[in-house]
């Protein structure tokens, strides 16, 4: 198999090398566009020191007709981990389905996406890979409050007669197509979101949703997001409040997570980023305050070097992170 794959890739890349634009993938034809990404990181904290080839992913997408398009993304993560203290290595080259969907574009007001897809909520969740983010780490909001993926249907588009207001209505009533990388396993997830792009420098929106986890906890959440760009500065904030009914013990708890992130672009390649996070889990009686200061260098947009220091209200969780990531 490998002896077939290597000549295939050499052939494809030879054909397209001259036309290749880093970060835009390789277009075989209208029906097939290939790309992918990877990221590595190095983390040092009080109890941990590790190096990871965190994820390797391959993407294929294209237009099957004027109305019909598709996306397939397969990912292995973490591919390689080395823990310095324990002197241990872990390898994982099993690729799993990260996204598999088809899109039917009927009009600007009505589109339908069916399959496994990223949950259309907020900003962070829609750009979940290292190379597209401004920090190596993710805020707790992005993996604690709602499932990152929907395996079902999303009806979306622009609200009729509006130039800037877009909507999503999504639903899942089955297990996830591939549960390996899903943050919250569930078989019931419904929601809706609205986003108003006042102009390209100012956007805000919100979502509501409900999901039931495998351990029969029903969460209902409300989410708000806002982004404002002013010359070299970008301010971005999201907040999610969740009400959780635990039917096993007939108890109701809540969770709240938010972050406020500020980015200053020193020039086209260098940025400084600061983030404050607040997370509260009523059931665990736990509250965290996290402050992050980071630096990002992008020689071109699709190649990212980042470093950050995280200061946590639980000082055992303070950490230093550097990462290198590429979208190709």
């Amino acid at each position, binding site marked *: 198999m490998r002896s077939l794959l290597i000549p295939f890739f050499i052939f494809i890349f030879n054909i397209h090398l001259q036309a290749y634009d880093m970060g835009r993938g390789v277009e075989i034809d209208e029906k097939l566009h290939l790309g992918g990404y990877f990221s590595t990181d190095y983390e040092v904290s009080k109890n941990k020191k590790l190096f990871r080839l965190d994820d390797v992913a391959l993407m294929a997408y294209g237009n099957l007709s004027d109305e019909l398009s598709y996306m397939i993304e397969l990912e292995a993560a973490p591919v390689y981990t080395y823990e310095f203290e324990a002197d241990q290595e872990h390898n994982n080259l099993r690729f799993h389905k990260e996204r598999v969907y088809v899109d039917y574009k009927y*009009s600007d007001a009505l589109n339908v996406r069916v399959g496994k897809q990223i949950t259309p909520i907020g900003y962070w969740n829609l750009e979940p890979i290292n190379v597209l983010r401004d920090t190596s780490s993710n805020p707790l909001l992005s993996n604690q409050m709602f499932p990152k993926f929907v395996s079902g249907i999303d009806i979306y588009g622009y609200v009729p007669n509006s130039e800037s207001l877009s909507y999503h209505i999504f639903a899942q009533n089955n297990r996830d197509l591939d549960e390996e990388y899903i943050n919250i396993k569930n078989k019931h997830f419904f929601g809706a979101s609205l986003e108003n792009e006042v102009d390209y420098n100012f956007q805000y929106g919100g979502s509501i949703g409900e999901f039931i986890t495998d351990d029969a906890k029903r969460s209902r959440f409300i989410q708000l997001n806002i982004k404002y760009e002013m010359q070299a500065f970008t301010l971005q904030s999201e907040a999610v409040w969740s009400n959780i009914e635990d039917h096993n013990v007939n108890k109701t708890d809540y969770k709240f997570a938010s972050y406020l992130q500020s980015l200053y672009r020193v020039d*086209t390649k260098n940025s400084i980023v600061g983030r404050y996070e607040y997370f509260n889990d009523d059931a665990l009686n736990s509250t965290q305050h996290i402050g992050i200061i980071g630096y990002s260098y992008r020689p071109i*947009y699709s190649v990212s070097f980042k470093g950050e220091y995280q200061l946590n209200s639980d000082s055992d969780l303070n950490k230093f992170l550097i990462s290198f990531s590429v*979208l190709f």
Partner: protein
Amino acid sequence: MSKAITILFTLFFSISLYASEYAIVVDKKNPINKISKKQIKNIFLKRRHFIGKQKTIPVNISANMPLRIYFEKNILKMNRERLNGFWTKQHFQGITPPSTQSSNNSVKLFIQNVDGAIGYLPKNLIDESIKVLYEF
């Protein structure tokens, strides 16, 4: 007298300076008759695909052509670095930039031959086969 001449010249040069040289155009048979700057931006960033019921297919001229740079600066209001970042993010979403033609004449041919095509041309290339929607 000299004051009046100065005012006249200032007026003349102001008018020349702001006279539009380029236009957003579609084929004469295309039912679209007008378009806003925001609609143009949304179409060329592939956020919108229709104007009314008419499907649109944006076409760019090559990235190094002065007209492309002028269009990006004055209509999209985005510099090249920002656009590169934008299309990199779109690649992750499975969306590719508009197709590109190497010359103004090939843009014109594309518009004349592809149903729903929309592009930009210097005004001196516009004839009765092309419909102007917006001047810039």
